Every structure is written in C-alpha cells, then in structure tokens.
C-alpha cells in the first residue's frame, strides 16, 4: 500500500493481471485485478494520499488484450494501455474523498470481472485506516464474460460476495480490511462499491460518522449504523470506539453473507477494539 505523510508526489506501479479467482468454497473462476506485482491477486491495490498530493503511476498490462485505466471523479482522459504494454501518467487530487479506478473498456466488463480499486484522499491523518472494496460475482457470468459472451446486466444474481476479494472468515486475515484499534482512536474506513449490487454496511457496537459520501453529500455528518453503498459509489466512514470488544460488520442484505448460498461465507468481518 502506498502512503504519504510528508511527500507531495507518490510514485507507484500497477499491474493489470488476469487469473483464477479463489472463491470461499475453493472453486475458481476467471477474474482480473490491478495488483502491485505481476502475480494475480483478487486484492486490488489501494492508495492513500492527502488533498494536494499527486500520484505518479506506471501501469503495466500483463494481458494480451488492451485495457484502460480510468479514475472516476477526475476529469481526465482515460489511459489506454496496449496489450502487454505500459503507460504512465501523474494524477492530482485537490479534494478529500474516495476515487474508484477501473478499466472502462467493453462497457466496464473488466471492472465487473474484478479490476477496480480505490484511491483514498484523506481529509486528515487518522489513528487507523482500513480499506473495504465491496464486490460480488456470479460465477457463471464470469465464465461467460471471459469467453466473450456479454452477460445480461439486468438479471444480475450474484453468488459470491467479497470485501477486498475475500469472504468471511478469510476477510479477517486481511490487515488492510480487519479493523483494529483502541477506544478513543479516530478510525477511517474507506469504502468503495466496485460491484453491481447495492450493499447495506451494518456496524455492531458503534455508530459511524459519514465523513464523505460520493452519492449523497447531504449525508456528511450523519451518524449511521447501517450505511447504503451504491454501485460505483464511495464513502469515508469514521468510528471513534467508546468501548472495547469484538464487533461484527456485515452486509445486512443477509444473502450477501453467503458464498454459493452457504452461510456465513460472504461480506462480514469482525472489528477488534482494545
């Protein structure tokens, strides 16, 4: 993960990879992602900067098809990366928020297949920060899309639900996702919905304060225990724990807590506050 405490330009390299998505029930299906190395991982590399910083990115395409690199919310042309090619650009971020980066080619098909991550521009330095990239898959859709068949977008019925490419209990092994901290800490949770479904992010134990919402700015400074995260939208949620404990956070569409309809293998993780 890239961080920036004092520098104004963050330099990094991102790789577009194809691979086999390792589902929670040990099946695999075709997927893709933006990773920090040439090795496919379902975890799209997150970035964190502050307002005024710049991200100097080299993007390397390990695929035999062309791909694009787009940052939603920035008024810039998309970066086109030829098959097995390389492109680079420097991106400036003036305001705080969460920006989704993704491949927009083929009606965002590759974004659906998993190639979408986030860039978090934090309004201030928190005591702790975590990244939640919500994404769901239909195994049959992934297989069809990888074969060149366009899915019927209106009939989306996913069977695997992930945060940062993992499902419960494996989400708890991801240190960028599992919220840890102490009472009184100011903790930022950077949320991006890179999938197609609406998710309801429900917190046990604490209410969160909405610091940023790309969909509804009117919700800033609302205190919520169940936050709606729409497809393509992002949010910064702040918790300041008032008590210690282990508390779940999960999608309250409880079908999204399943993997291939097995419970409890979907969008859930357990916060640990000391």
């Amino acid at each position: 993960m890239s961080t920036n405490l004092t520098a104004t330009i963050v330099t990094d390299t991102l790789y577009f990879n194809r691979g086999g998505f390792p589902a929670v029930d040990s099946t695999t299906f075709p997927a893709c992602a933006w990773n920090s190395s040439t090795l496919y991982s379902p975890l799209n590399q997150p970035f964190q900067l502050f307002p005024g910083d710049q991200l100097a990115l080299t993007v390397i395409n390990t695929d035999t098809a062309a791909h694009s690199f787009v940052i939603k919310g920035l008024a810039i042309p998309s970066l086109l990366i030829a098959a097995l090619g390389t492109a680079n650009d420097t991106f400036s971020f003036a305001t705080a928020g969460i920006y989704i980066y993704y491949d927009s080619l083929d009606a965002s098909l590759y974004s659906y297949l998993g190639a979408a991550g986030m860039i978090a521009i934090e309004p201030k330095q928190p005591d702790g920060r975590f990244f939640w990239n919500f994404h769901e898959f239909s195994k049959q859709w992934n297989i069809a899309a990888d074969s060149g068949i366009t899915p019927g977008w209106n009939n989306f019925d996913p069977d695997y639900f992930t945060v940062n490419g993992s499902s419960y209990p494996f989400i708890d092994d991801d240190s960028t996702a599992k919220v840890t901290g102490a009472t009184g800490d100011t903790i930022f949770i950077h949320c991006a919905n890179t999938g197609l479904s609406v998710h309801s992010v429900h917190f046990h134990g604490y209410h969160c304060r909405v610091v940023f919402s790309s969909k509804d700015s009117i919700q800033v400074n609302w205190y919520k225990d169940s936050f709606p995260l729409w497809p393509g939208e992002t949010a910064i949620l702040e918790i300041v724990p008032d008590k210690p404990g282990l508390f779940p956070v999960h999608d309250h569409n409880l079908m999204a807590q399943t993997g291939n309809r097995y419970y409890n293998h979907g969008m859930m993780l357990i916060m640990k506050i000391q």
Partner: protein
Amino acid sequence: MKTAILFSALFLLSICGFSQQTVKDTIIMRNISAKTMWDGHVMNVYGFGPDIGTVPVPGPTLICNEGDTLNIFTLNISQGSGHTIHPHGMDVPQNMDGVHETSFEITHMMDTNLIWVATQAGTYIYHCHMASVLHVQMGMYGSIIVRAAGGAKTAWTGGPAFDKDCLWLMSEMDSYWHDSLPGSAFWEDDFQVPPYNPGYFLINGLSKAQLNDASVAISAKVGEKVYLRLSNIGYYMNEVILPSSLSPVILVSDGRPLPVSIPGDTIRLVPGERYEVMLTPSQEFPFTAQVRYLDMNNLEVHEVEYVPITISGVIGREESFSEKRGIKVWPNPASESVKIDVGNFPTNEAIVEIRDISGILIQSTPFPMAATREFMIDLSGIPSGIYSIGIRSRSFAEFRKLIIQ
C-alpha cells in the same frame, strides 16, 4: 450559605429530572409455529413470542424510555436449535450483542436475562443472529422503540413534538424456505440456503388487504402531527412514497437526529436501516402511501404495497367531515366513465373531485345545479391507476376509492 443551598437544590433537580427505570419483558424463542398470510396460505415460521403459546411475526415491540434499562427474560424452546437476540443499532457491549461468534448462544431449554441500556431515543430492531440469514427470514425479528426521556412524545429528548407515532417494519417472506426446510435443522453455520425469491411483502407482518389493519393504516386529523417510524429487516431495499400533501420531513436515521431535517416524500431504506419521519397533514383526504420492494442486485421492483392514510376533520372539532352521507360510486373499477350518487350530500356549490393517491387534484367538475342525485363523470384522459373520487362543498367532503382501468 444561601448560595450553597441554591446549588444543592439545583443539583437535586438535575439528577431527578427524568426518572430512569428498569423495563422488564419476556421473549420466548420458538422454531415451530405457523403464520397465515393474506391469501390464506399457512407458513411454517420461527419467532419470538411474549409467552409460550404465542409466536407472532414480527415479535412483540419492546418499548422503553431513553435512559431505561431493558431486562429481557428469554427462554429458548426450539427442539435443539440455538438462538440469540441482537439489539440492532443499540450499540450494546460485546457480551450483550447477541452474536454467537463473539458473545453468546441460548441453547434449547436454556434461559437467561438480557440487560440493555437504552442510551438514545429512536427506532431499533431485535433479531436472532444465529444462522441469521435463515432465522431472520423465518420470522425471528421485532422492533424496539426507545421514547424520549420521561416518555415524552418528542422525536428525541428535547426534539420536536408529535401527537401520535406509528411503526412500519418491512420484510419479505419466501414460502419455499418456510414450506420445505425442516423445523429444527440448520441451527449451525455452514449450511446452504435456497435461492431467495420472496412472494410475500410485508409491513408489520401484513400485506395486501391486511394493511387496513390499525397496526399499519394511519388515521389522523388535520393538523395532528404523526411520527412515522420506518424500519427494514428484509433483504430487499424499500422505497416508501408518502403523499406530499402530508408534508413529510425526515428527522432521524438509525436512532440519531439528522444535522438538518430533510423535507421529502420518498424515503429509501436498505436492509437494517431506519428512518423517522414527521407528517403534518393539512387537508382531510383518504390518502395512500406506497411501499416498494426492490432487489438489491438489480433494483427490480418486485412488489408495491399500498397503505391507507386517512386524514379527517380538525383536531378539537366535531368530526362532521367523517359523517357518511351515503355517496355511491359505480362501476368500480371503471374505465371511460363513472357515476356518482351523492345520497343526501348537500350539493349547493359542490364540486366533484378526482385526486391521485398523493392527494393531487386530477380533475374537478362543479356539480350541476339542475342535476338529480346522480351524475356521470368522464374519465377519458385519466391514466389507469388508483384514485379517490368524491364531492366537496363549503362544509363537507366525502370520498371513495376509485380504480381506473
């Protein structure tokens, strides 16, 4: 000396401002019961009941005041199934959170007392958090209403006042889950559920014609402030569309006052979310609210339920508006025209009105001076839908529901 006495008096007043008490309740957990739906279909359900013999879905609404302690005696009689009770949104400590992975499980024939402190007025939910995708669908949920301190009829302690409050708890039921799954199976994690295709869309456990029940339908008077508590325990998104003539204002979400209240007649709730809305009716009318149920994966609207909201008279006045004067409307449903018989309604300077379910005037026709008690109204140009048709004079108004096909 006088200053010390004054400070002592003020201190005593401050600590005695609102007495906080322990509110006791009983919840019996069951996994063998039945619920009759609006069409007569009988579903197997799980649930929470106030006693051993009763298992309503939803479970009983728990009510207390801000600052109270809820002491819930719970007993599980479920033929081997474990259950929990999670107080959704109340931010209780881990040991009372009701999640079996992190706090506790109440096994068959075990009883315990759950102690929750209601720290903030608002609308909350309680539900089983054991195999929750199954147990919630099967009916193990209910509502918690925490009133303002002292039981004041205000949105929050010190907040805006209301005259009456109403609760709508939305959910869905898929009959295949209820009819095919064994009563005592799947009490552990790592089980597979069927695809979710609900066919029943509920408000307080009721739907369709059942929504005329007083537990859902709203009756109020002009000028009366109605506080509507909206809550979603289903797996679908709800879109609640209220008549704009009721001047709805959103005040609270998830038990927390909004920084700025929001006027708005359309409220979306994702699963687990709650909203509290102040209604201030300004005209008497038989309104209808819509509650839509949308699939979270593709936003397809699977069902729309309609809830009557009847506004009559004026607070403190004799209810002369509600006195039925026998108007009749036929045919109903109608298509190109409809007849209205005004009974003994005074027709001097009367107007026949057709309004949509939001109360918006669609068509008005002066009642002909020379007409008999019957009068034909042309409906051409009015789209199909649900409307109200009636007659209004200086002193009286009476309406009937009209379906135009």
